[in-house]
């Protein structure tokens, strides 16, 4: 439970952080809240030569409305997102989902940029983000680019982020009064989801049903065709490739995906009805 030897750098600006990434390449790991990285380093599953701590870079934590979108700084901690008034009004699924991450200690350290970069298929916020749609704004030595969330997560712990790029911001559409729900299934409150389903505005995303968070496309298509929630939800596991572990085998995970999708859609429909 002691990490291997590593060097530690703490840049004070985004530019410095990117320079450090350019210098160290894939020997380096970026750390923000440290709640995903440090445990795997302590278990020596990851042994980066350099840890680049971006937690002290000013200006990376914010939530603000920009046109039709809400822009969230990558350094925004889950606790801040959970209690942010702008987020609660404009994109309420995110503050709620943030409130479901780990425990208070985790939420006070973990950041939205960190959870997006980590690309764990059993993560809460990426599931909600995938249902929302939107983009991940990243910056490298040659400037910024935007990557749609649908293309960002490429595999288990794999993203579209280049070695020398840093996540700057997450941009999501304002959903306002549209119905939404995040249904997380765990054995204990502070666990990762065994399966989770996020639903916003006819879109559904699932946690832990494949190597990345995934959209329940068959469900979405059925809804678009005018199928009932029950009919559409029954298709939620189509196209997924869930793993098996001590909490759930594949059959049970598929069942949970269908069940949680149905519940999320029902809740979202109820919420939309209440708002309308």
């Amino acid at each position, binding site marked *: 439970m002691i990490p291997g030897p590593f060097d530690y750098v703490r840049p004070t600006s985004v530019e410095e952080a990117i320079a450090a990434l350019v210098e160290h390449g894939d020997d380096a790991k970026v750390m923000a809240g440290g709640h995903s990285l440090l*445990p795997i380093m302590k278990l*020596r599953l990851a042994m980066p030569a350099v840890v680049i701590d971006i937690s002290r870079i000013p200006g990376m934590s914010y939530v603000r409305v920009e046109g039709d979108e809400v822009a969230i700084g990558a350094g925004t901690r889950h606790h801040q997102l959970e209690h942010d008034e702008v987020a609660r009004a404009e994109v309420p699924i995110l503050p709620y989902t943030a409130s479901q991450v780990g425990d208070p200690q985790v939420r006070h350290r973990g950041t939205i940029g960190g959870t997006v970069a980590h690309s764990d298929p059993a993560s809460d916020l990426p599931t909600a983000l995938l249902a929302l749609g939107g983009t991940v704004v990243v910056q490298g030595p040659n400037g910024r680019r935007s990557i749609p969330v649908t293309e960002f997560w490429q595999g288990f712990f794999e993203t579209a982020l280049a070695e020398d790029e840093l996540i700057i911001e997450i941009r999501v559409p304002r959903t306002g009064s549209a119905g939404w729900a995040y249904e997380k*299934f765990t*054995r*204990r*409150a502070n666990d990762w989801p065994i399966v989770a389903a996020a639903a916003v505005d006819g879109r559904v995303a699932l946690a832990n049903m494949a190597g990345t968070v995934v959209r329940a496309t068959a469900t979405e298509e059925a809804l678009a065709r005018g199928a009932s929630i029950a009919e559409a939800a029954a298709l939620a596991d189509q196209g997924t490739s869930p793993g098996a572990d*001590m*909490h759930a085998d594949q059959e049970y995970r598929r069942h949970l995906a269908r069940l949680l999708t149905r519940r999320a859609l029902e809740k979202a429909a109820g919420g939309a009805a209440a708002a309308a």
Partner: protein
Amino acid sequence: MSILGTRVVRTEDPLFLTRGATYTDDLVDDRLTGALHATFIRSQVAHGRVLSVDASAAREAPGVVAVYTAEDCPDLAPLPAGLPMVPPAMQRPWLATDKVRFVGDIVAVVLTEDRYQGEDAAELVSVDIDPLPTVVSTADAAKDEVLLFEEAGTNVAAVFGGPPPEDFFSGCEVVVRQAVKNQRVAPVPLETRAAAAAWGEDGRVTIWCTNQGAQQAKGEIAGWLGLDPALVHLVTPDVGGGFGAKIGADPEYAFVAWLAQRVGRPVRWTENRSENLLGMLHGRGQDQLVTIGGRRDGTVEAYAIHVDQEAGAYPRVGVILPTLTMLMAAATYAFPKVHASARVLVNNATSIGAYRGAGRPEATAAVERAVDMFAAEIGMDPAEVRRKNLVPPFHEPHTTPSGATYDSGEYVVALEKALEAAGYQELRAEQARRREAGEVKQLGIGLSTYVEITGADTGLGAAESAELEVHPDGTATVLTGTSPHGQGHATAWAMLASDQLGIPVEKITVLHGDTDRIPRGGGTMGSRSLQQGGAAVHQAATELIELARQRAAEQLEADPSDLEVDLTAAGLSVRGTPGSGITFAQLAEKEPLVVQTRFEAAAPTFPFGAHVAVVEVDTESGKAELQRLVAVDDAGIIVNPLLAEGQRHGGFAQGVAQALLEEVLYDADGNPQTSTLADYPFVSPTELPSFELVDMATPTPINPLGAKGIGEAGTIGSTPAVHNAVIDAVAHLGVRHIDMPTTPMKVWRAIQQAQQEGTN
């Protein structure tokens, strides 16, 4: 008014909560200056032949002072199992020689200047192991096809009793038989194992370690190392939980002492959490076969249990746990026939030891499940079946068919109290309503009645010691042979002394866990401490008063019989003349006012109770949530309700966790699946309701305090109540049994299977 029975706030807590207690890893001691750190290299293979251990690279690593493999310490004789019934060949080498037998078996040890260097160097030790087929389940072990110890010729470590007579259930109208798993669990004390050792110029070694009984650990370590016990000084500083897994010395502790002698420097070791989950003793691990038979009117006529107990790779105290399960097999019931037998098997897993309740929760879980299944089979309310079969109230010793002699018990009263507090009839009505409505969330109501044995070492020479001294400044010191690690002895023992002497609790210091100062002691385990150690303190206070009376009589020129204790003055005064006397502190001025005593109870005690659990099961997902736990726990006279409630709360949490959450899992190759706390579902407050405690106190005549044990009752009563509640919630869907832990997937699958069977 006596201080006994009042809610005195724990005197130890300010230290624990503000300045920090001193656990073994925190020790700052001159004798440990320059200590090396030990890092054990453990097998990552469950069963295999050790082909080679190459430590050459590690020996060259920064900060490495020494690396020991089996080749480097040929003089260390293997550790005997220490239990007469276990085949002698089932002994543990200090370092794996020819074979490894579980993931966690020690292969080598690195000594470094600091801990960081130790983990870095450990990565450089190259261990080549040729894997062998593994034995994970008791069923596999029983085949004796793959042997852990070839020389033993079998995986069977012990056998207790034989099968019941063939006609045991003949004549019964109904016989229900069920395999019931009482799963392997990890104790997970907050303080992991730790030890430190330093040899003095006088040839004595001081060993500090986190343990539940310094005196026993000292004896074991001296024996393993072939040392004169007089040369071993063992100290247990503050201890952060044990739950049974810190009973007896662990090989690592002795190893640390051996290493310190070998390198001529003090050595320290503190394991990390993953190492703790692999290396520390696990608990439970029973595969039970229960059979219950009786009449359709609800009368049970015969009950039998057979236990296949996992021992783990190297037999430890787990071997004898089934004997307690067998002793308590008859439980609270007046079953005319009870039969119990057990077999203990080694397997490629962490060794099994005592875990909160140690054999008794297993007995209760089995019989309470059996009674519920019997009730379901005959279509009778489980409360009614219990009423029909419980032993009627008794206040004279009652001997059971399984051989236990209970001191006193009012099981029916406990059950009725629990049912009333729970609102049993209303709960059943609500359950019926939800069933009728076909609601997704169904209600389950689970009952358990229990009786357990505490202070079971009584009669085995395990008297408890106490020394009590009053000092001239008016303070007092209690030395106890018990070994608190969360229980609150500093408060309770001070209350017991204060009650008789009138010295305020805050002026009484309680010391424990130092074999030089307290050479005799039984430690804290088996819910023995208050009824033996507390009673010893009580006795010491009585004896100190007599000593003081003789001295005071001389000084006051009074007849001793005219002197009485003046609690207000904390001394003695002449009867009828308050203020005429002399204080205990004054009496201590001329010569020490000190007594040493030993108390031995005549017999164990048998606390009992009844629990009602209410769970809500989401029948679509299979998830069970505990809504209520109503608990009647009768531990006789309570010295401090605050402490007793704390013991109950902690026990409930662990008991609920066993029913719903916790299980140590291995894959088919013996690889642990739960070796971090991210994977091992340690219970947290969010999964627990506010417990509903109901008081009941039937005094025991066995000790002057009238007290029985309370430390383990929580795990004994709560587990079967919650377990039964989960099954009760889905019983109407055709589910008859689900093994613990009742995970969502298991519950969901049980519902699916029952529905399929129902439609076929």
